[in-house]
């Protein structure tokens, strides 16, 4: 039986969880300003700024949850180690979470739920990723030999084990973006979906252009002044190209989908680059915010996760949010018309446009999503109004924190209701609703 939580569950929670504020470091392109900064360094830098902004020095926070997608095994307790390296009270508990690119949003959901249940009063959610300082593993052959060697007792045994080592075992394994079950990269998967929904190159470039325009405009009007702390000489997201144009984007060569029957449309301009960065969000109960004289930007209303069968099924790898959203809307009795802002993570321009096309497609919504008709259209003027990942970059686990803090601030300034949609590797996705306070 399909899991459809009803309105009596999450949407009517006993308490309210509010977004108090956020902080992130500017996102850098891989190999750029943060080339030598580790995940721990960047997470601490993001926490430092949050602590300074909200006067949290020495404070015991209810819980800190964060994660990284590309994580070295020595960072098993990454978030707790970051807390110990921060000015927060060392008595602040922390845990790591990993749900690919949905990591950051899921930490917000998890801690908000604890706040709603009254288990904690305050929480810091977030994530960090470094594509530059990525862990590199030894080959399976060398790993086997080293483990056997550590158990060997005699010199003879050691020599015998070492003799099984082959030259090719000495080459290291860098992490890839390939899906373990399909062997296709995320871009190749999206290229299949982009082609299936007949998304044009022009539409993708236009979305990328608007992302850069919106992000640049947000910087220019000082929107990020209380959402961002400079780090390692970077004041703005390094990937931002305020001067790009659809014409410039049109000159880029396609990089994904070159083996498909239809023309390849996905370029480096309408796909997110590998990025380094960190973002955190301060959450709390209303009581906590009031008692500490802290702002309340928006309420965290509800969230839903979904997963799709992209391996044997015919659904696209990054289409899970398309499935999560109608369930979330139904539970909350809402339609697209009830939202003023949409934050759809731009893993690729094709991902956003395929999702929008799917929700508009009556046949797909009936057959695949089990709805009575098309879910509806999203007013493009409400979409990613302060730019998104195509312009800012996408340090995987940091993206959720970036979106939640930006949307909460937008809601506090302009009122209304906001929807967040984040796709993730493994055919997963998380969607969430934030709401203005008044």
């Amino acid at each position, binding site marked *: 039986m399909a899991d459809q939580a009803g309105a009596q569950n999450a949407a009517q929670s006993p308490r309210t969880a509010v977004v108090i504020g956020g902080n992130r470091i500017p996102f850098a392109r891989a190999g750029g300003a943060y080339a*030598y*900064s580790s995940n721990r360094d960047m997470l601490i*830098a993001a926490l430092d700024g949050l602590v300074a902004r909200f006067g949290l020095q020495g404070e015991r926070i209810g819980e800190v949850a964060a994660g990284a997608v590309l994580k070295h095994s020595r960072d098993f307790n990454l978030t707790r180690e970051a807390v110990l390296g*921060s*000015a927060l009270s060392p008595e602040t508990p922390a845990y790591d979470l990993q749900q690919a690119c949905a990591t950051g949003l899921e930490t917000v959901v998890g801690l908000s739920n604890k706040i709603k249940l009254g288990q904690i009063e305050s929480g810091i959610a977030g994530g960090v990723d470094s594509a530059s300082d990525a862990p590199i593993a030894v080959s399976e052959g060398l790993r086997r030999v080293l483990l056997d060697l550590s158990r060997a007792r005699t010199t003879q045994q050691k020599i015998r084990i070492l003799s099984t080592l082959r030259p090719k075992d000495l080459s290291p394994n860098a992490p890839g973006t390939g899906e373990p079950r399909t062997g296709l990269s995320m871009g190749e998967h999206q290229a299949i979906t982009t082609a299936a929904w007949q998304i044009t190159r022009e539409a993708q470039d236009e979305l990328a252009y608007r992302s850069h325009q919106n992000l640049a405009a947000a910087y220019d009007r000082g929107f990020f002044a209380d959402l961002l702390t*400079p780090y390692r000489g970077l004041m703005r997201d390094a990937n931002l190209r305020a001067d790009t144009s659809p014409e410039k984007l049109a000159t880029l060569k396609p990089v994904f989908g070159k083996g498909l029957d239809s023309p390849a449309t996905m370029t480096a301009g309408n796909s997110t680059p590998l990025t380094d960065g960190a973002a955190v969000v301060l959450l709390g109960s209303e009581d906590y915010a009031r008692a500490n004289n802290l702002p309340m930007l928006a309420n965290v209303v509800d969230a839903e996760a979904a997963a799709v069968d992209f391996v044997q099924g015919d659904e696209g790898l990054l289409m899970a949010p398309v499935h999560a959203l109608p369930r979330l809307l139904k539970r909350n009795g809402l339609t697209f018309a009830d939202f003023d802002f949409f934050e759809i993570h731009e893993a690729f321009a094709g991902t956003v446009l395929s999702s929008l096309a799917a929700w508009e497609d009556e046949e797909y919504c009936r057959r695949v999503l089990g709805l009575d008709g098309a879910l509806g259209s999203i007013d493009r003027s409400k979409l990613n109004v302060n730019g998104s990942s195509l312009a800012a970059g996408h340090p995987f686990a940091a993206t959720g924190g970036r979106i939640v803090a930006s949307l909460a601030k937008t809601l506090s300034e302009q009122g209304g209701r906001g929807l967040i949609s984040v796709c993730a590797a493994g055919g997963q996705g998380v969607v969430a609703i934030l709401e203005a306070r008044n």
Partner: protein
Amino acid sequence: MSQENGPAHLVQLEAVPALAGLYRRAVRTTVSRRVTRKGRPSVLPAVRHRVGGVRVELPALTRFQHLLGSAARDQLPSAYLHTVAFPVAMSVLARPDFPLPLLGMVHLSNEVRQERQVVASETLDVVAWSESLRPHPAGTQVDLVTEIAVDGQRVWSGRSVYLARGIRSEGAPERSSVERPAFVPPVPTGRWRLDADLGRRYAAVSGDWNPLHLSGPSARMLGMKGAIAHGMYLAARMVDEAVPAPSGALSWRVDFATPVQLPGTVTLCFASPAGGDAAPRSRIDVVGWDAKRRRPHFTGWVGAE
């Protein structure tokens, strides 16, 4: 900080000097002094060396922070400010009219008062001088005083005490014949395992290529049993681990006892002093010792406001 030799002459240096050059010059001075057996220590040069407009290089800062195991944040570790300013202080010691030999001087203690946290984008003005030349039972002691200012405001000041062993001066007190109380190790709270190449690695990130720390042979040349850890490495790690994320003023002091041979293991105790109920985290006392020989390597404290 007072100046005791009358008004000091201010020597403006073009840039922070390279320590490697200062050490090379010091080797020549040591050799020539050994040959000529020139003079006894008498007076310190009445000079202050100043370098303005010092900028921190981010890649070097990151390497320093990572070697200590601390987070690569934009805020400068207190000991890194010492490292940035150190060559200016050493240029005072390396002057031909400085009465003690730079090489082989033993670092006895450091005391630092930092008024506020400093970030990597700030421009630093460094001034350094020597004062308080005085006898010590084992030779002659001198203080090296360094101050760092940003926009004319002092943000950091440090006093390092050095001992020139065997350089006797008038009125030196005799070695005390009273037995020192035996060292009683506290309950350990941590351990540092220091690799054989730590001295070279710290030299690479700090610029302090003192031969004492680089290798067995170079250290033995200066009368050590083998390469020893930089005192400032121990101090930097002590400060960082005691207060990982200072946000305001910071004070600290370290007194060095026996050197840490490399490779080696230092056992540590970080503890809030008993009775500090009012502000339990405002001050941390630190002891680092050799657990096998039951000898202290250093004692210190870090106070954060």
